[in-house]
C-alpha cells in the first residue's frame, strides 16, 4: 500500500510545486520517488506481507516479478529523464507543464503499482484505466500537433478498450453469480469450477480484447506505434517496458480464472491466435520501417505477441522470462533512441547513420539492444524465445511454431538491417556535443542486465521467474 | 631390375621416334620424302646446345617451369604399365596419373602467362579450358574401366584381357583417341605445325621459350604424347597376362600403329574451327558416358 501511496503523494506535491524555480526539487522528488519505490519493493522481498493491510491489495508471486521489473525500469528512466528533459527543453522551448509532467510520472507509477498488486478485478480495472489517464499527458509532453494526435488516439482507444474490458469483468461477475465468491482473484480461482462457463468465456474474450488493446495485441494495436513514436523517449520506454506488462498482467489474472474453470484450452487458443497475429502484423510493419521509434513500437507488439503465444502454448517460464527480457531490452532501445533523436534530430532511419562513430557509446548500446530484441544470443530475449520454441515443439504446436519462426525470421531480417544501417557508416558532426552521463548509465545498466542474464541466469532470479510461472498454473 | 631399366629405356628414349613416325606418314601422304625418322631427336639436341633468350617480363617461374613439366610427366610415366607392370603402380594410381599430367599442364599455362604476351595468354586460356574438358572425359573413361575391371590402378586395369568382348571398349578407344589428339595438340583440334595463327593452342604457349628450355618442353611433350598413345593402345588392346617381354613389345607395336593412324588422320583431316572444339570434346565425353552406361547395364548394376 505504501508503495502505491508514496508516489501518489509525491506526485501531488510536485503538482503543487509549479513554476520554473522548483524544477530542481521536482527532479529530486522524482528520483526520491523512484528510489523509495525500490526500497519498498526490496522490503517486500524480505517481508512479503509488509504492506498488505487490505485484503484486496496483495502482491503475489507473479505480481512481485512485475513489481520488481517496473520499479527497476522506472528508476532507470527517472535517472535518464534527468539528462534528457533539460536537453529536450532547449530544443522545444516548451517551458510549461514541467510540474504536470513529473507528477504524472509519479501518478503513473502509483497506478501501475496498484494494477500489479491488486487482487480485486474491479480495482484492477480502475488501476489500469488510471494508468491510461496518467500517461496520456505524458505522451502529450511535446505539445505538438503530432503528439496531440497520438495522445488523443491513445486516450480514446485505450479508454474504449478498457471499457470493453469492464464489460468483460461484468460478464465474469455474472458468471460468478450464485457461487458466493467475491470478485477477488483468490476466491474466483478457488471457485473456478463453479463459474458459469459460457459467461466466463465471453467475459474472457471481452477482457482479452479490452486489455489486449492496452497491451498492444494486433489488431487492436494501432494506437501503439503512434503513441510510442510521438511520446518523449523515456515515456515510450516506460510505456513499452512497464505499462504493456501491466495490461498483460490484467489479462493474466483472468487467464488464471479461466484456468481454474477448466477453460485453459479455450484461453490458450485465443492467446496463440492473438500472439501469432501480433507477430504477423509486427513483421509486416517492421519491414522497411522508416521511423525508428515506430520500429521499436512494432517490436513491442511483436514481443507482446511472443509473450501471449508463450502463455498460450503453456511455456509459462519462458513467457515470464520474456516479459523481463523484453522490458529491459526495450527500455534500453527506447532510451538509446532518445539519445539518437537528440543527436540527429530526426526519427527517420534514412537520416541516421554512422552512430558508432558519432557517439560510440550510444551506438554500441543501440546495437546491443537491436541484436537482443531481434533475438540474437547471448542476450536474454534469445533465451526466452528459444525456450518458447522448445516448449512449443515439445508440446506439438508445430504449425504455430513454424509461423513463429517464420515471423521471427522476417523480423530479424528487417530489424537487423535497420539497426545496422543506423549504427554503421561515417561519422556525423554533433549538434549537442557530448551527452551527459545520466543518459548513458541507465542504458548501460539495462544492457548489462540483458547480457549478464543472457549468459548466466542466477539461481535466485530464475527461481523468482519460475515461481511466477508456476503461480500462473492453478 | 631389368624391367625397370627397360621401362626407362622405352619411356625416355622412344617417344621422339614416334613423332618422327607421324611426320614421316604425313610427308608420305603429301608426296614428300620428309625428314628423317630421328629428326625430333636432332631438334631437341640442337636446342639443348643453344643459349637462351628470356623476356624482360618473365620471372623465375618461366625459367624453372620446363624442368618441372618434364619432372611431372616422367613421374606420370612411372605409373604407366609399359612393360606389363608399371614401376610404381598402386591401387588408386589412375588419379595420380591424371593429376600429374594436370600439374604439367598448369605449369605450361603458368609459364606461358609469365611473359605477359597476349598470344601466349590466349593459348594458355584455351589450353586451360580444353584441358579441363579432356580431363573430365578421362575421368569418365577411368570410371568405366574401373567398373569393368573393378580396379583403380593402371597396372591392374590393363592386366585384364578381354577387352574386345566389351562393347564399351570401342567407345572408350574412340574417346581416348580424341583425348590423345586434343591433349597433344594434334590435327583436327590443333595444328602443331603452324606457329603464327590465332587458332593455335599448345604451340602458341611456348612462343617465348628458346634454347634448352624449348628443347626440354618439346621432349616433355613427346613423352606426354607417348603416354597417351600407350594409354589409348592399352584401352583397345590391354596387356592381359602376357609373360616376359611380350607386353613391352606388343605395346611398342600398338603405339606404332597409333602413330601411323595419327599421321593419316592429320593428313586427311582439316582443322576444326576453334569454336567447335568444346563441342567435339563434349561429344567425346558423351561417348564415354555412353560407354559407362553400357558397361553398367551389362553388369546389371542399373
Amino acid at each position, binding site marked *: 500500500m505504501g508503495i502505491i501511496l508514496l508516489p501518489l503523494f509525491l506526485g501531488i506535491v510536485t503538482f503543487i510545486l509549479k513554476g520554473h524555480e522548483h524544477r530542481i526539487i521536482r527532479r529530486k522528488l522524482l528520483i526520491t520517488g523512484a528510489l523509495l519505490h525500490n526500497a519498498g519493493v526490496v522490503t517486500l522481498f524480505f517481508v512479503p506481507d509488509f504492506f498488505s493491510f487490505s485484503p484486496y491489495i496483495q502482491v503475489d508471486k507473479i505480481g512481485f516479478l512485475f513489481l520488481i521489473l517496473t520499479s527497476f525500469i522506472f528508476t532507470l528512466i527517472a535517472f535518464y529523464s534527468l539528462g534528457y528533459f533539460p536537453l529536450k527543453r532547449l530544443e522545444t522551448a516548451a517551458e510549461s507543464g514541467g510540474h504536470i509532467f513529473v507528477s504524472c510520472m509519479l501518478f503513473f507509477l502509483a497506478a501501475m503499482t496498484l494494477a500489479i498488486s491488486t487482487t480485486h478485478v474491479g480495482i484492477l480495472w480502475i488501476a489500469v484505466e488510471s494508468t491510461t489517464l496518467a500517461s496520456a499527458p505524458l505522451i502529450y509532453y511535446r505539445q505538438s500537433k503530432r503528439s496531440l494526435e497520438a495522445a488523443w488516439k491513445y486516450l480514446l*482507444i485505450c479508454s474504449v478498450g478498457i471499457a470493453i474490458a469492464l464489460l468483460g469483468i461484468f460478464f465474469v461477475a455474472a458468471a460468478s453469480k450464485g457461487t458466493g465468491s467475491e470478485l477477488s482473484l483468490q476466491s474466483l480461482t478457488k471457485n473456478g469450477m463453479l463459474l458459469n462457463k459460457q459467461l466466463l468465456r465471453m467475459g474472457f474474450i471481452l477482457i482479452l480484447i479490452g486489455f489486449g488493446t492496452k497491451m498492444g495485441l494486433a489488431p487492436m494495436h494501432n494506437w501503439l506505434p503512434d503513441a510510442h513514436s510521438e511520446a518523449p523517449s523515456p515515456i515510450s520506454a516506460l510505456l513499452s517496458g512497464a505499462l504493456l506488462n501491466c495490461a498483460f498482467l490484467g489479462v493474466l489474472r483472468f487467464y488464471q480464472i479461466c484456468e481454474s474453470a477448466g477453460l485453459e484450452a479455450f484461453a490458450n487458443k485465443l492467446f496463440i491466435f492473438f500472439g501469432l497475429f501480433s507477430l504477423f502484423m509486427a513483421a509486416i510493419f517492421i519491414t522497411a520501417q522508416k521511423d525508428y521509434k515506430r520500429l521499436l513500437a512494432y517490436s513491442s507488439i511483436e514481443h507482446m505477441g511472443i509473450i501471449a503465444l508463450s502463455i498460450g502454448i503453456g511455456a509459462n517460464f519462458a513467457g515470464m522470462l520474456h516479459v523481463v527480457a523484453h522490458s529491459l531490452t526495450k527500455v534500453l532501445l527506447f532510451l538509446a533512441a532518445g539519445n539518437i533523436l537528440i543527436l540527429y534530430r530526426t526519427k527517420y532511419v534514412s537520416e541516421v547513420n554512422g552512430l558508432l562513430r558519432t557517439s560510440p557509446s550510444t551506438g554500441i548500446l543501440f546495437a546491443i539492444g537491436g541484436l537482443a530484441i531481434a533475438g540474437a544470443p547471448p542476450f536474454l530475449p534469445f533465451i526466452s524465445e528459444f525456450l518458447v520454441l522448445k516448449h512449443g515443439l515439445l508440446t506439438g504446436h508445430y504449425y504455430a511454431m513454424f509461423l513463429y519462426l517464420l515471423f521471427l525470421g522476417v523480423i530479424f531480417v528487417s530489424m537487423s538491417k535497420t539497426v545496422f544501417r543506423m549504427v554503421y557508416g561515417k561519422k556525423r558532426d554533433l549538434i549537442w556535443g557530448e551527452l551527459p552521463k545520466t543518459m548513458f548509465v541507465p542504458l548501460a545498466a539495462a544492457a548489462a542486465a540483458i547480457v549478464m542474464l543472457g549468459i548466466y541466469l542466477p539461481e535466485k532470479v530464475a527461481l523468482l521467474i519460475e515461481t511466477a510461472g508456476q503461480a500462473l498454473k492453478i | 631390375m631389368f624391367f625397370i631399366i627397360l621401362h626407362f629405356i622405352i619411356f625416355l628414349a622412344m617417344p621422339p621416334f614416334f613423332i618422327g613416325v607421324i611426320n614421316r606418314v604425313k610427308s608420305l601422304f603429301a608426296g614428300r620424302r620428309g625428314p628423317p625418322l630421328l629428326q625430333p631427336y636432332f631438334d631437341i639436341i640442337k636446342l639443348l646446345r643453344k643459349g637462351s633468350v628470356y623476356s624482360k617480363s618473365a*620471372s623465375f617461374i618461366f625459367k624453372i617451369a620446363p624442368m618441372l613439366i618434364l619432372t611431372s610427366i616422367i613421374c606420370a610415366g612411372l605409373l604407366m604399365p609399359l612393360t606389363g607392370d608399371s614401376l610404381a603402380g598402386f591401387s588408386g594410381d589412375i588419379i595420380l596419373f591424371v593429376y600429374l599430367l594436370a600439374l604439367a599442364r598448369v605449369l605450361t599455362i603458368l609459364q606461358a602467362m609469365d*611473359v605477359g604476351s597476349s598470344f601466349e595468354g590466349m593459348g594458355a586460356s584455351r589450353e*586451360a579450358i580444353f584441358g579441363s574438358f579432356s580431363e573430365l572425359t578421362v*575421368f569418365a573413361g577411368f570410371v568405366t574401366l574401373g567398373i569393368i575391371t573393378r580396379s583403380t590402378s593402371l597396372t591392374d586395369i590393363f592386366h585384364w584381357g578381354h577387352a574386345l568382348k566389351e562393347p564399351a571398349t570401342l567407345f572408350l578407344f574412340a574417346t581416348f583417341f580424341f583425348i590423345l589428339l586434343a591433349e597433344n595438340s594434334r590435327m583436327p583440334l590443333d595444328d602443331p605445325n603452324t606457329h603464327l595463327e590465332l587458332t593455335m593452342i599448345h604451340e602458341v604457349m611456348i612462343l617465348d621459350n628458346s634454347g634448352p628450355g624449348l628443347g626440354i618442353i618439346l621432349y616433355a611433350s613427346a613423352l606426354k604424347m607417348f603416354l597417351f598413345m600407350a594409354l589409348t593402345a592399352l584401352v583397345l588392346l590391354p596387356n592381359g597376362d602376357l609373360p616376359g617381354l611380350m607386353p613391352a613389345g606388343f605395346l611398342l607395336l600398338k603405339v606404332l600403329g597409333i602413330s601411323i593412324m595419327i599421321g593419316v588422320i592429320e593428313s586427311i583431316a582439316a582443322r576444326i574451327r576453334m569454336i567447335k572444339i568444346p563441342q567435339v570434346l563434349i561429344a567425346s565425353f558423351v561417348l564415354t558416358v555412353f560407354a559407362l552406361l553400357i558397361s553398367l547395364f551389362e553388369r546389371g548394376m542399373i
Partner: protein
Amino acid sequence: MLLVLFSIAILLLSSLFSLLFAGEKRQTACVGTAIASIVGLSGSILSSGSQEFFFKAAVPDLVISIGIDPLSSFFLIIIFSISFLTAIYGFGYIKEQKKLLNTLPFFPLLVASMAAVTISRDGFSFIIFWEIMSLTSYFLVVSEHENREVQNAGWIYLIATHLATAFLMAFFVLLAKESGFLLFKDFAVGASTITPSLAGLLFIFAIIGFGTKAGLFPVHLWLPHAHPAAPSYISALMSGVMIKTGIYGIMRALMFLGRPFAWWGIVLILIGVLSAVIGVLYALLQHDLKRLLAYCSVENIGVIAIGMGLGLIGVAAGNTTVSALGFGGALFHVLNHSIFKSLLFLGAGNIAHGAHTLLIDELGGLLKKLPLTGITFLIAALAICGLPPFNGFISEWLIYVGLFQGTFSQSGYPILVLTVAVIGIAFAGSLAVICFTKAFGIVFLGEPRKIDLNGCHESSKLMLAPMFALAFLCLLIGLFPKIIWAIAFSAAEAVYPALSTAQTFAVLSSLNYITLMFALVIAAALILFFLRTLFFRKKPESLGVTWDCGFEYPTAKMQYGGSSFVEPVSAFFKPALILAADGRAEDLSEKGLFGPLFKKALDFIMFIRIRRKSSIQYYLILIFITLITLFIWEAWFGI
C-alpha cells in the same frame, strides 16, 4: 580437456583486456590468441578418448554439458592451429592498418566461440555458442563499416546465419522431443529408436542449418559477400576454419540420427556436386580476388560434402571401406582446405597491402615485387587444385578412391550418383585449375596492368612467417599423410563406430606409395635442376622483350587479362549463367532464388501495409470487428 578450457579462458581474458585498452595495446588480443592457441592445440592433441562434464543451468530442465571426443579434437586442432597462425599474421597486419584495432577484441572471442562450439555437448549451449560465433564473426566482417558494400555484406551474412540457426533450433528441439532432454548424450541414445521419416526430416534440417554456415549451394549466398568484406586475416580464419564448423555440425548431427539411409548420401552428394561445380564456375568468373577465393570455398565444401555423402552411402550399404574413405577423405579435406585456403587469403591480404587493390584485371607482375608471397600463393594454389605433391591431392585422392570403390559395390541410383560425383569432382578440379591459373597467372605473372608497382613492397616478416608455415604444412602433409589420416579416421570413427572394422590397410599402403611418388617427384625435380644447372651454366643467356609478333611497342594493356582468360569458359556456360555486364557471373542463388524471394516477400508486405489507414475511427472499427468476429466464432463454433 582442461587445457582447452584454459585456452578458452585465456581467449576471453585477452578479449577483455584488449577491450579495456585503446590504441596499440589492443594487440593483446592477437598475442593472447596466439598463446591460447598453443595451449589449446596441445590440449586437443593430448586429449584421448571421450570426456564429458555436466552443469546444471538455472533455467528449469536444462543441463549444460561440455566434452571432448576425437571428432571434437580433430576440429579443435584445426581451429587452434589456424588461429595461431592468423593471430601472428593479424598482429603484423593490424600494425599496418590501425583502423582495424576497433574490432580486434572480437577476434579472440571468435576463436573461443568456435572452440566452444566443438566442445559443447548439449543443444542449448551449442546454439548459444554457435550464434556467438556468428555474431563475433559478423562484427569482424564489418570492421570497415564506413563502406556501404561492407555493411550490406555483413547484413547478408547475419541474416543467412541467423535464419539457418532457426533450422538448427528446430533440429535440436525436435531431437529433444524424442529423447526428452537437450543433451547430446541422450540424443545419441535416442538415435536407435528414431523413426525414419523424422530422421530424414532432421537430416534435411541439419543440412540446411549447418550447410548455410559451411557454404553449400544454394545457401552459400553469404559467403562470397562476407569474405571480400572482411579484413584478410579474418577471411582466412572464417574461410579456413569457421565454415568448417558447419561440417562439424553435420558430422555431429549424424551421430543423433541413427543408421543413415542411402538417400541421405545421395542428397548430400548431389548438393556437393552442385556446390563444387557451381562454386568453382562462379569463382573463375569473378573479378575480385577475395571473391574468387570465397566461391572457391564453396567448391571445396562441395567436395567435402561429396565425401560425407559417400560415407553415408557406405554406411547405409554396410560397406565400411567406402564409408571410411568417404568420411576420412572429407575430414582430411577439411583440414587441408583450412590450411591452403587460409594461406590464400593471407596472400590476398599481402596483395591488398602491397598493391592496394584486389581487382584481378588491374594486377599483374606482382611476383617480382612480392616474391615470397607469390611462392606461398603458388603452393597454395597448386594444393587447392589437388595437384601433387601437395596435401590437396591426398584428400581428393581418398574421396576419388572411395567413389571408385563405391561404384564397384553399389547398384541402382547410388552408382549413378557416385559416377556423377566422380565426374563432378573431376570437372570441378579441372575448372579449379583454370581458376587458379587465372588467379596466380594474372595477378603475379606478366606485367602490371593498371597498378603502379613502385610503392609496392613485400609484407613484414611477421606476416610472411605464418604463410611459410602454412605452405610448409601443405608440402609436409602431402608427403606424410598417414598421421592426418589416422586423426581424421578416428574422428570419423567417433561418429560411426562400425568404421573401425574398415579394411583400411589397402588405403594405408597406397598412401605409402603416394608418399613414395611425391618424394620421387621432388627428387626428380631436384635431380633435373641439378642437371640443368650443370649443363646450362655455361650457356649464354640474354634478355629481350616478349615476342611481339611484329608490333613495335607491346604495352601492358595488350596482355591477356583475367576476363579474357576465362572468356571461353563463360562463353561455353553462357546458357547456365547470369552474366553481369562486366563479364562477372552473378550468383544464381542470389539472383534467381533468394533475391526474387525477398522481393516477393517485400511486395507482399507492402501490399498489406498500403491498406492501413491511420484515422482513429479505423482503429476503433478494427477493434470492433475483432470483437464481433470472436463472438461469432465463439457462438457458432466454439473456440
